[in-house]
Each structure stands twice: as structure tokens, then as C-alpha cells.
């Protein structure tokens, strides 16, 4: 077919080595180890690059008489010395899984975004047609209801015009044209067109402070989603405020997030606000307001799973909570949210695995230290002295005492001439 390759497949992404300390990924393991030596295991005093954190610690204490307390340039919850990392070795299982989840999530997100922008089916899958088709199958009554809601909002917007705020923000985005709108809302439409792709790309940033303010026009915002999603031909339903369905593809990564999602509820750690609320209630309502923050948002925290998992990891695996610990909140979330059951069981699995790993590590280290055997271990008597006590080397000075007094030399002894009294004593003597 001569289809253009669109980039790495999920498997390729998963296989990429990455750095435990800063989550960066690399083309191959060698570069990763070089990165770790240069960024995380470099002695700040003399610039020497060590292979591992343990090595650096020993170097610092022996050469500079200093104590290494944390790894440089590491993420806040990864700067501990307790984990011995070399390349990809030593990464705790739970962290590894969290990373893979995140990679998968990002991959699917990017995929969804691309679909949204290009209208192409997902790479290499027949099911790709679904996102476009699904809206058509939507319940007619549903559509009507939403249309009504949309109209109401529009009326509201026309009166209050809260959407004006959003307009400039979306200006930079490029999306499919709004020409297909049935009843383009004069003021709101430009804004809305831009939102959909954005919202798809970065579901997490939504929510937060802006929610209340933007509530009135949420539905409007949602409606333009359609144009962006669908090929131009899909125009007919575009104006409808029904937004839930088209989003479905965007949330395909959801399964991956499942364990993490509940944690986001209730109390969210500051850096990772409520990412996952949207999916549960058709995804739309809470979104619009936070647009401005989009640009500045780092990609990685897009899903809450890793940080929280790492947190847990820290608690379970290292025995103390990480500094910004949202631990209590997170447990609350577990208790109050229905999906909590799932997540807690996953947590249990993770933590028990972590404990096992920790338990396995400790004895191994002890073994290393103790297993030495000395061939000669007498601290006070030298081997020669011991040998001298053997019967065959026995020698009694008394026998020769008189004879060998100073000045009285037992004469020159030439090879072969052995005098009787020079021989080993007679025990009977």
C-alpha cells in the first residue's frame, strides 16, 4: 500500500530504555548508562563519573569524606539512594510498570490526537473506522436533548458572553474549519473549534480552578468537537452539543489508567490535578477553563498513575513517605470512590511485590559481606613459630647452652660434616 510509517509502534516505545532518576528515555542502553554517569552519578567535587549510586556514595565518603544524601538531577521522589540502579537494572517492578503504563497512555493519546487531527484510522487497525462511525449511530433522542441543551447554553452565552474569555487563548490552534456548522454560534464558535483537539491531546490539564467560571458554556465548547473529529462529511451533526460519543476514541487509553484514576479523585496531589474526572462523566463538563495552562503543562504528568505509584513505591519499598506525600488523601480516595476496590487491589499487588523484592535484596547483601575464609587466622603466633613447634623441627637450646656461649664457636662446619650433638635431641635426654 505504500503507507507511510507514522512513527514508532507501541512495542518499540515500550522497549526503549529509560532513566529511573529522570524518566528520560534513550535510543539504547549504552546512551542511558552514559546519561546516568553524566547526570546522576557524577561527583560534584571532582567530576568523576561513577557507575552507580553506591559507587558514588563510596567515592564521596572515601575521597571527599562526604556523605551522599541524594541523587542529583533526579525527580523529587526518585532521588533516594536505596535503589541501586545501573542502566535499566535495579528499577523496582512497580516503577517499571507505572512507566510502561504511562508510555502506553501517551502513545494512545498521541494516536487519538492524530486521529482527531487527520481523521485517519489508527495505524494498522480495521477498528480505526469506529470513531467516525460511532457518532452516527448515536441515539436520536440523545442528540435532540443535547441540541436543546446546546441552544440553551448558546442563548446564555450570547447574553453573558463568558466564552469571550476563551477566544484569544485558542487562537493559535489549527483545526478543521468551522464551515460545517449548522448554526455556528457567532461568538463562541472559533473558540470551540480549537478546543476539541486540544482537549483530546491533554485531557489531564482540564479541571481545576477554571471549572466554575466556564461551566455555562461547557456544552458549547463541547459541540465543536465534531468538526475536528470527523471528516468534513460528518457536518450534519456537528452543531449538536452532544459531545460524549466522539470522545470515546480519545479515551481509549483509559483502561491503562484505571488503577491510577481513583487516586486522582478527592484529593489530588498538586502537580497532577484531577486528570481523570472527565472520562467518568462523558468527559466534557470540567474541561474548557484550563486552556491557558495547556501550553505550560509538562507532558509527563498527563496521567496521575506514575507519581502516585511512585509515592506508594516510596512508602512500601523504602519505608518512608515521599516529601510531598498526598498519602492520606489518596487513601480517602480509595475509600470513597467506587473504583477504589480495583485500585486498592492493584496497590496491594504492587506493594506486596515491592516488599518481596526488598526482602530478596537484603539477605543478598549480607551474604556478600560475611563470606570470607582466612587461610591463616592466628593473630598472635606467626606461621613460622607454629612450624618451629613441630616435632621434626624441635630444637633444644639447653643441649648446646654451654657449647655455644659467646666467643666459643662450634668450629667451622663444612658441608656434610655433621657433629653428633648438633642433631635433634633425644627425647629421653
Amino acid at each position: 500500500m505504500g503507507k507511510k510509517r507514522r512513527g514508532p509502534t507501541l512495542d518499540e516505545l515500550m522497549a526503549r530504555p529509560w532513566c529511573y532518576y529522570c524518566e528520560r528515555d534513550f535510543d539504547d542502553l549504552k546512551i542511558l548508562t552514559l546519561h546516568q554517569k553524566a547526570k546522576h552519578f557524577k561527583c560534584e567535587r571532582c567530576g568523576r563519573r561513577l557507575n552507580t549510586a553506591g559507587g558514588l556514595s563510596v567515592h564521596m565518603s572515601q575521597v571527599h569524606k562526604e556523605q551522599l544524601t541524594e541523587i542529583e538531577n533526579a525527580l523529587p521522589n526518585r532521588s533516594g539512594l536505596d535503589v541501586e540502579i545501573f542502566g535499566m537494572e535495579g528499577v523496582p517492578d512497580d516503577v517499571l510498570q507505572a512507566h510502561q503504563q504511562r508510555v502506553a497512555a501517551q502513545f494512545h493519546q498521541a494516536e487519538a490526537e492524530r486521529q482527531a487531527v487527520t481523521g485517519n484510522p489508527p495505524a494498522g487497525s480495521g477498528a480505526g473506522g469506529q470513531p467516525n462511525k460511532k457518532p452516527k449511530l448515536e441515539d436520536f433522542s440523545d442528540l435532540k436533548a443535547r441540541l436543546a441543551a446546546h441552544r440553551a447554553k448558546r442563548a446564555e452565552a450570547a447574553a453573558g458572553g463568558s466564552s469571550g474569555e476563551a477566544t484569544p487563548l485558542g487562537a493559535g490552534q489549527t483545526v478543521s474549519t468551522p464551515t460545517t456548522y449548522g448554526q455556528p454560534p457567532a461568538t463562541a464558535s472559533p473558540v470551540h473549534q480549537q478546543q476539541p483537539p486540544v482537549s483530546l491531546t491533554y485531557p489531564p490539564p482540564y479541571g481545576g480552578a477554571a471549572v466554575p467560571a466556564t461551566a455555562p458554556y461547557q456544552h458549547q465548547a463541547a459541540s465543536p468537537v465534531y468538526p475536528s473529529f470527523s471528516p468534513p462529511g460528518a457536518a450534519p451533526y456537528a452543531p449538536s452539543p452532544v459531545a460524549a460519543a466522539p470522545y470515546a476514541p480519545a479515551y481509549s487509553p483509559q483502561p491503562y489508567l484505571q488503577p491510577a484514576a481513583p487516586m486522582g479523585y478527592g484529593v489530588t496531589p498538586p502537580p497532577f490535578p484531577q486528570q481523570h474526572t472527565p472520562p467518568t462523566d462523558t468527559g466534557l463538563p470540567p474541561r474548557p477553563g484550563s486552556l491557558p495552562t495547556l501550553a505550560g503543562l509538562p507532558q509527563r504528568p498527563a496521567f496521575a498513575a506514575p507519581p502516585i505509584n511512585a509515592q506508594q513505591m516510596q512508602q512500601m519499598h523504602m519505608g518512608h513517605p515521599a516529601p510531598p506525600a498526598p498519602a492520606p488523601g489518596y487513601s480517602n480516595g480509595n475509600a470513597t470512590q467506587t473504583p477504589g476496590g480495583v485500585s486498592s487491589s492493584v496497590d496491594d499487588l504492587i506493594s506486596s511485590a515491592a516488599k518481596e523484592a526488598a526482602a530478596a535484596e537484603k539477605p543478598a547483601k549480607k551474604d556478600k559481606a560475611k563470606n570470607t575464609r582466612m587461610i591463616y587466622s592466628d593473630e598472635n603466633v606467626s606461621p613460622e613459630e607454629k612450624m618451629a613447634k613441630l616435632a621434626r623441627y624441635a630444637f633444644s637450646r639447653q643441649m648446646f647452652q654451654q657449647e655455644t656461649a659467646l666467643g666459643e664457636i662450634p668450629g667451622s662446619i663444612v658441608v656434610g660434616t655433621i657433629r653428633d650433638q648438633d642433631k635433634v635431641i633425644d627425647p629421653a635426654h
Partner: protein
Amino acid sequence: MSSNQFTVASPPTDAISALKFSPDPNSTRMVVSSWDKNVYLYDLRDENGAVGEGKLLQKFEHRAPVLDVCFGENENEIYTAGLDWDVRKIDLNTSEQTVMSSHEAGVRNVVYSREHNLIISGSWDSTLHVHRPDAGTNTQSIPSTIPLPSKPFSLSLTPTKLVVAMASRALHIYDLKALALLTAQADSDTADGNKVEIEPWQRRESSLKFMTRCVACMPDDAGYASSSIEGRVAVEWFDPSPESQARKYAFKCHRQTAEDGVDVVYPVNALAFHPIHGTFASGGGDGVVALWDGISKRRIRQYQKYPSSVAALGFSGNGKYLAIAISPGFEDGKDDVPEGVVKIIVKELGETEAKGKGAK
């Protein structure tokens, strides 16, 4: 790849206690003392001057096992120390033996300082005897006795200093000049016997946690290396300044990992400095000889394992040969010296074989 090596013909019949080359740069003479009560004199060259198998020139019978031997003023004179408590001088030409002094226990070491013309012996009676070479023949000359806090296990000399490694990890460094002066005084003043209380120039505790096995001084008079029964070697400097003392270090060696993962630690029986390059060789109970660069802290090379423990090592005066004495070692849990092959192996070193690699 491996250097030229040969086994010396007619080796001693029992374990070797010491092996010394003549310090004369042109000489290939070597003396070996053994538990078979003999001292052996070898020359690596045969009658035609070609270095071959080595030749046994003479052997000198003693009354008891001989524990140490060294060359004296010239290569026709050697001193021996043994289990019969005596320190002897042997004239190689006439085979005449002279008792220099008698200790009150076996004499473990004897060394000769050419610069100060002193013979120093260390005995398990925890004393050093300092003799002048005419002692023994001259009844007026009585050796001076220097009491030590513990049994001396190893002695080593530089042109100016004497290092005594003792039990209890003690280590004394004496200034030879002071030693020579004091013994000369004690000689003239024979009234109160021959006991000399002399304060060592430095008292140190070994940097190693276990019993000191051997000590050897650097040929440049800057410091010394010591080894312990626990597979470790320490390198230290004489200079008492903090900068120099900060340079001292120790390292592990002569260890093997057994199949069950246990680290087997062998004693380091012998150390010898190369007279020209200033590098040193270590020989362990594992039968391994390794060459080290003490300045750049690197191993230069390690030779193939020998079938039995390395009892003694010696470099020839010109640094061209390294003699290795192989003897069954006396180990834990053995009541008897195991039967083993006693061998003297001489390695002819390549031009740069024992040369340091230079700093990193």
C-alpha cells in the same frame, strides 16, 4: 607473552624460609635458607656465564632450621639466623661459620646495612641484636640488645632506616645513624652489659587489621609496604607530614572466590621492591605473584598461579631477575607442614615488565 622462567636445579628438601639475591648489580648469586637446616648458595650463571638452570655452588649445614639469611659486606659473606637462637656469619670462601650472638629464642630475621656496617637480627624473644661485623671474632665487641614491645616478625632496611614489624600490629622505625652511634657507645662502655634503650624514630600501628606478615622498604627511602595474613597490602610513607601520611593506602589481594561463593583469603607471605623501578612484587599463600606500582596504585601484572604457597621473593641487584620460592604453606587446621613441592623459580623479566604504568 609470559616471561622467560626456569626452575633452579637442586632445590632445598624442605620449606624455604628466605631467599636473597646479592645486592651487587652484576651478580647473579642467590642464597636460600630452608627448614631442612641448610643454607644454599646458587648462581644463576653457569661456568660459561650463561644464565640457565642455575647452579648450586655450596650448602651450609646448621644445627636447626634456618629462618633467614642475608648478604654481608660483599658477596662472599652471608649472615644467617635460625631456630637454634644463633646469628651466624658464614664466609663463603672458607665456609667458616662464626656465631655473632645468641638470642633467647628462635631468630626470625637478619639484615645487613652496608651504609652503616651493621648487622641487625630480630628474634622471638622480643629483642633486636645490633652487631658490628667484627663481633664474634673480637671478644671486645658485644652486640647491643634493643628490647621490643612484641615479637618482631619482619625487618626491612633502607640506607637510613630500619623498619621492624611486630606482633600486636606494632611497627617501629629506627634511624640507623642513631642506632649505629648508640651501639658504638655501648661497645666502648661494656660495663653495664649490652642493653641499649633506644627510642624509635617513629612508632606506628599497622594500617592493616591483622598480623603483619612481611614488610619491605622502597628503594628510594621514601616509605615501605607491609602485608598481613589477611590478603592485604598497605603502602605508607616515612615522612610524618600530614600530606604524606594522607597518601598511605591499603588494598586487598591474594584472594579467591571458592565455588560456594566464599572468599578465601590467603596470607601475603612475601614482598620485594624492584631495585630500579620502585615497583614491588607480592607473593601469597595462594601461590600467586603479582607486580604492583605503589605510586600510581595499579597492578602491573599477575603471574600464573604456582602449585604451592609463595614463601619468599627476591629481585636481583640489577632488577633483571625475580626469584620466587615455592613451598607448602603452613595453614590453619594443619598439624604438619603438608608435603609439597619445594621449588625456586627464576623469572627473567623483560625490559619494562616490572616498570610502572605511570599515573592515570
